[in-house]
């Protein structure tokens, strides 16, 4: 079984723990981290907002931030593997999170990921835009975990027809 585990900042420990618990011992595991370029873009933009200041070339400007983010991704995957306690491949990608995860899931049997939205209520908002896209487009089975305590079913709002219909 080929399994892809999407490692995300904040929720990575819970995801790794669930992967270790539910993936079979002989699973061929790949730990994936995708560095979103959006925050890097925002960090560069703060500087580009300054009118008339001399700028390094866009390439040179992006380099230090990219290096920081690549190093952080390597370290995160190393720690995730240590926590997993099994052999696993590591893969890092850059770009739009949801697109890269779906592309990396091609040819996999199962994708493990954590919900990235509202964690207090069951419901569609428990998926943020990235996980929503990935779940909707995943080219394989999906193991979708709650990164925290799973909310109970009373967090679902009553159905719209709970009150007696008016005549």
């Amino acid at each position, binding site marked *: 079984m080929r399994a892809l585990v999407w490692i995300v*900042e904040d929720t990575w420990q819970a995801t790794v723990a669930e992967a270790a618990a539910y993936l079979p011992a002989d699973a061929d595991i790949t730990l994936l981290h995708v560095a979103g*370029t959006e925050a890097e*873009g925002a*960090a560069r933009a*703060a500087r580009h907002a300054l009118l008339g200041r*001399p700028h390094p070339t866009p390439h040179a400007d992006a380099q230090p931030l990219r290096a920081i*983010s690549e190093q952080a991704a390597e370290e995160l995957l190393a720690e995730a593997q240590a926590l997993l306690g099994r052999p696993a491949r590591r893969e890092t990608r850059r770009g739009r999170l949801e697109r890269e995860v779906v592309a990396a899931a091609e040819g996999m049997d199962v994708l493990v990921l954590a919900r990235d939205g509202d964690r207090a209520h069951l419901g569609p908002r428990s998926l943020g835009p990235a996980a929503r896209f990935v779940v909707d487009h995943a080219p394989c089975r999906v193991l979708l975990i709650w990164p925290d305590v799973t909310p109970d079913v009373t967090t679902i709002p009553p159905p719209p027809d709970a009150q007696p219909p008016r005549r």
Partner: protein
Amino acid sequence: MPEGLALALALVVLASTLGAAVFRARYVTEAAAGTAGALLLVAVGAVSLTRAGDALRELAPTVGFLAALLLIAEGARREGLFDAVGALIARGSRGSAQRLLAFVFVVAAGVTALLGLDATAVLLTPVVFATAARMRTSPRPHVYACGHLANSASLLLPVSNLTNLLAFHAGGVSFARFAALMVLPTAGAVAVEWVVFRRFFAIDLGRPRQPEAQAPRPQLPRFALVVLGLTLAGFALSSLIGVQPVWVAAAGAAAITAPALASRTTSAAALARAFEPGFLVFVLGLGVIVAAASGNGLASAVRTVLPTGSSLGDLLAIAALSAILANLVNNLPATLMLIPVLAANGHGAVLAMLIGVNVGPNLTYVGSLATLLWRRVVHAEDADIELGEFLRLGVLTVPAALVTATVLLWLCLKV
């Protein structure tokens, strides 16, 4: 030269100079564009040599002041202040993204107020990005906070923003009085940002996290902190002891730079890059170009649009119009255009204008809406930036921050 033609020419030169700065064409630098534009306007008689000389003389202390501030900020970076602050807030956050955001707000507001918005945008933002990455939390809210606070917190002191320095030198208030009048408006604008950020990034900030190992407490660079503290005290006391604040800044710049030069931890070339001579020349050129436009009818046009009173309604109108102008032409030329007109109306009007030109650019990530649209049309640059998110954050914060800050300014002026 007839006034109408001179005005048209000055506006064309202004637009081209701003265009050169916005597009950052490789073959024409900002400084060259500003100088060429100013020389052209003097040569064709759109602005007299005397008037151009006056504009340069008025701007010279401001530009010198800015150079000193840039050197102080570079000194603080060289001494490791920004890295140490990054490590300190990572430690203080104890793994919580919300606490990290609170610390980023405090640090970004402090750096902006004391060292100016350039320091936050250029020196602090990458450190905050690295801090969030090292804490294994989403950097988005924290990086956006730096960008927004570089503008919103730049109301506080004359040194916080070049626009403030320009207004400060146009006269009227002492350093301490400026700070006293602007402390509540700044606090109000930052509070609005805080409320909006907490809601806007609620999901990013609320993700459950497990505790991680604590890093050791970093050493703050004492020398840099002492120089910054003394410089700030000098600013506060400048009017009491009868020294121009620009000399305090110069002393601070010398104090933090001289030891590094002596011990060769920096070079003259690195210092020359740090105080951005090209930018200083650009500001001087822009000053002459705007003086040409103002002298040929732009000032009277602005005068007919801007209210002259100091009622709350007038101050709000001045802040709003200044924010609109800043988004049309960027806040530096907007300030140069507005100061000569507003200086006659007392410092309430000038400070309301500063609220508009400083907070207004938060509407976009490139300082003005016009710049944003042009750049996106011409370049494929910044394609990885989620435009919609920036704009929504701007729309949620800017009007509320403008109104809050202006109302608080009006109250402070009453006291």
